[in-house]
């Protein structure tokens, strides 16, 4: 029955005809074929129109989620003139159509010889005022109107003082037939001061007179949400019990951003994406441009004084959190500058201010999508170490080396965990000297208890130190063994070695011993068996007692 209806529709579409003229009424042929019989009938119709030259290929796409499928987009023409928007999309597997969608004009007899030239029309549009400029050359087209009428028009894109418009002008009379805005949403670049007082650029969305922390430049959907100190909503979102609202997106009215946490969260997540893309050719967390959703401002700094520390002096990546398990990045706001933690003697600024913090947490997302190192015992310590390593790599990628705030070093979180009390330290871990923060710098000193998931944040110091030694060289303080590092100028080699090993080679339950072999193999793969990287990595693991 469906096939019969489809055949009648096709036949009807072909038989209907109307008077010719400057404007012509023409019925639309609507194709929405998903059932086999319909698809076959419409496929035959589309093929015949293609052979007649009425439908011409525009493009062919492949959907990565269904790689066997081929998606053809065909444009309808009448006497060589395209009919605006009249297209057919045919999804096929090995040449067999699976579905066809489209809306075509039928039985057109409209004359396609224009009275006016494209130059005439362009001159008229430019002379129309409003500082009009043509962004495209005027081209001939047939425009189907809502009334069913068809007009021979010239179409172009005009930029005026009031906006950018797609304009259609009658090719005989020069009367404007249709105009609509070409600006759906507009990317914009804003500026703002980060936590450290430095000015950064933000890639944002301009919409309805405001600016939103919704990155329009990078490939993935990268959005920063401002929870505006609504902790209940924070929990609902983390638990996936409610959806994001447009009003949740961090925003600014003049694109000169004043919320330092929003600035740094949005920028540092973007920069981390960029690092992975440029250094390792990776497209985001899952290498498929997974959404990057960031939450900030669960509490104000003052409000955070009585709030759970997880949401105040912490940042985290939660792979399964959020609506639809989208995965969330969270940055706490720290505490006011006149407070410090009794245990460490440190003040904690907004966590988003540490680029190594952001990169550390996002690297957990990379690990989740690749080796998925089990967050327990040695594999967990490797998981943590890889986040520290990539966090530091990102820091060196964007900052100049040095000991100051906003400079690159081998401390973790030093830009936001700041020593206040005499004798306290900046940061939370040191890759140069793990023992400064109570981490082992040698396998013999590893923690073997059950706390902290078997010491995932403790024993990570061992692998961190390997990374440091492999680049900078030096002597392990426990073993006394020296390492010939590749040197800071060649840090890229060690970054790539660790990336390849931890993303591609390690199994989920890897141990330090496995990590040693995998990183050495990665060095051989990338730089050959006699390369300096192989020597550096081998010596570094030996120096920390992993053989």
């Amino acid at each position, binding site marked *: 029955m469906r096939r019969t209806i489809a055949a009648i529709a096709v036949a009807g579409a072909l038989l209907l005809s109307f008077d010719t003229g400057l404007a012509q009424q023409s019925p639309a042929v609507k194709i929405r074929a998903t059932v086999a019989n319909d698809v076959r009938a419409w496929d035959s119709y589309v093929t015949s129109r293609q052979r007649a030259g009425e439908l011409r290929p525009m493009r062919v796409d492949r959907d990565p989620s269904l790689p066997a499928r081929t998606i053809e987009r065909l444009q309808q023409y009448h006497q060589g003139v395209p009919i605006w928007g009249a297209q057919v999309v045919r999804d096929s597997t090995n040449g067999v159509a699976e579905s066809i969608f489209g809306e075509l004009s039928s039985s057109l007899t409209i004359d396609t010889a224009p009275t006016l030239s494209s130059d005439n029309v362009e001159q008229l549009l430019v002379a129309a005022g409003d500082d009009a*400029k043509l962004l495209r050359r005027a081209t001939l087209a047939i425009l189907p109107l809502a009334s069913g009428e068809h007009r021979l028009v010239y179409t172009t894109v005009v930029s005026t003082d009031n906006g950018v418009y797609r304009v259609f002008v009658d090719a005989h009379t020069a009367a404007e037939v249709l105009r609509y805005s070409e600006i759906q949403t507009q990317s914009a*670049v*804003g*500026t703002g001061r980060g936590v450290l007082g430095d*000015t*950064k*650029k933000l*890639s944002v969305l301009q919409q309805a007179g405001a600016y939103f922390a919704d990155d329009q*430049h*990078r*490939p993935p959907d990268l959005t920063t949400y401002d929870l505006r100190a609504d902790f209940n909503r924070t929990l609902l979102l983390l638990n996936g019990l409610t959806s994001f609202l447009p009003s949740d997106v961090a925003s600014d009215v003049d*694109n000169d951003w004043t919320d330092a946490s929003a600035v740094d969260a949005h920028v540092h997540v*973007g*920069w981390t994406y*960029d690092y992975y*893309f*440029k250094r390792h050719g990776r497209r985001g967390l899952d290498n498929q441009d997974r959404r990057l959703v960031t939450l900030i401002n669960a509490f104000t700094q003052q409000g955070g004084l009585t709030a759970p520390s997880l949401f105040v002096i912490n940042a985290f990546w939660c792979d399964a959190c959020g609506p639809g398990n989208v995965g969330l990045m969270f940055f706490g706001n720290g505490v006011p500058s006149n407070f410090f933690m009794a245990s460490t003697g440190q003040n904690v600024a907004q966590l988003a201010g540490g680029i190594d913090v952001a990169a550390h947490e996002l690297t957990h997302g990379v690990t989740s999508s690749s080796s998925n190192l089990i967050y327990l015992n040695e594999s967990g310590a490797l998981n943590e170490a890889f986040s520290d390593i990539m966090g530091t790599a990102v820091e060196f990628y964007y900052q100049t080396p040095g000991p100051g705030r906003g400079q690159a070093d081998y401390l973790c979180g030093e830009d936001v965990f700041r020593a206040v009390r005499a004798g306290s330290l900046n940061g939370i871990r040191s890759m140069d000297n793990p023992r400064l923060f109570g981490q082992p710098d040698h396998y013999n000193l590893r923690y073997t208890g059950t706390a902290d998931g078997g010491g995932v944040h403790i024993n990570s110091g061992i692998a961190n130190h390997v990374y440091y030694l492999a680049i900078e060289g030096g002597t392990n303080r426990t073993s006394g063994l020296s390492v010939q590092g590749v040197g800071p100028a060649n840090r890229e080699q060690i970054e790539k070695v660790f990336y390849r090993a931890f993303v591609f080679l390690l199994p989920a339950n890897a141990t330090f011993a496995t990590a040693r072999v995998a990183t050495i193999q990665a060095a051989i793969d990338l730089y050959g068996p006699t390369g300096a990287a192989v020597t550096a990595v081998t010596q570094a693991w030996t120096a920390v007692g992993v053989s």
Partner: protein
Amino acid sequence: MKHAAGVLALVMMASAANAQTRPAPRPRARINRIFVSIDGVYQTAPKDFSDSVTFQENAESGAFSTSYDVKSGPAFTLSGGGLVWQRLAVGVGVSRFSHATPTTLSGSVPHPFFFSRPRSVSGDVGGLTRTELAVHVQARAMIPVAPRMQAMVFGGPSFFQVKQDIVNDFEISESYPYDTATFSRGVTNTFSESKVGFSVGGDFTYFLTRQVGVGGTALYAGATMKAPSPDGGTIDLKIGGFQAGGGLRFRF
């Protein structure tokens, strides 16, 4: 015209009477009272010009500079006039020519993610032209050289109508991660303005008949004007140039 012919006849008769006692003088050169010239000329390019523009893009200042190469080219001139006193004449000449002005553009476009990391772009902007219509009002001194030859020197104010295509923006193609950008095309508009300048020149004619001759001409006409730059500044334009060519001469 008749009066001129009569005067000339009297002069010739007087000369014939003296011829019996003195060697025959050389025929005197004839001064034409009304003259018309049609010339094809080649105009050398006026001075090339350039522009530097700053703009705001990606929350930072960018800049581009354009260098306009004003090409020499052929032109057509028509001039004419009449004797007003002794050997002094007044004339009007009209010339029109259109120069191609191929333009090179180089610019730096701010990066969307970082301060102080501009992307360099450069390219050629084709299709730009300059069109000049000039009306030269001239005082002309006529210098008879020989019976068939005549020279003229002239000068006076020139009225120019100039249309010059100016690059006021440009488009680039870029894609993530935006570390490089490629010049796509220049966006132009046409500046149009009138300006008064001057012209000086000379002309030499050899008459083939009493009324028709051929000649060569050379003229310099020039003026300066300021065109608006896209960022609100101005561009100094030299217009006109040196013309040389030849064509037909008519006298009455």
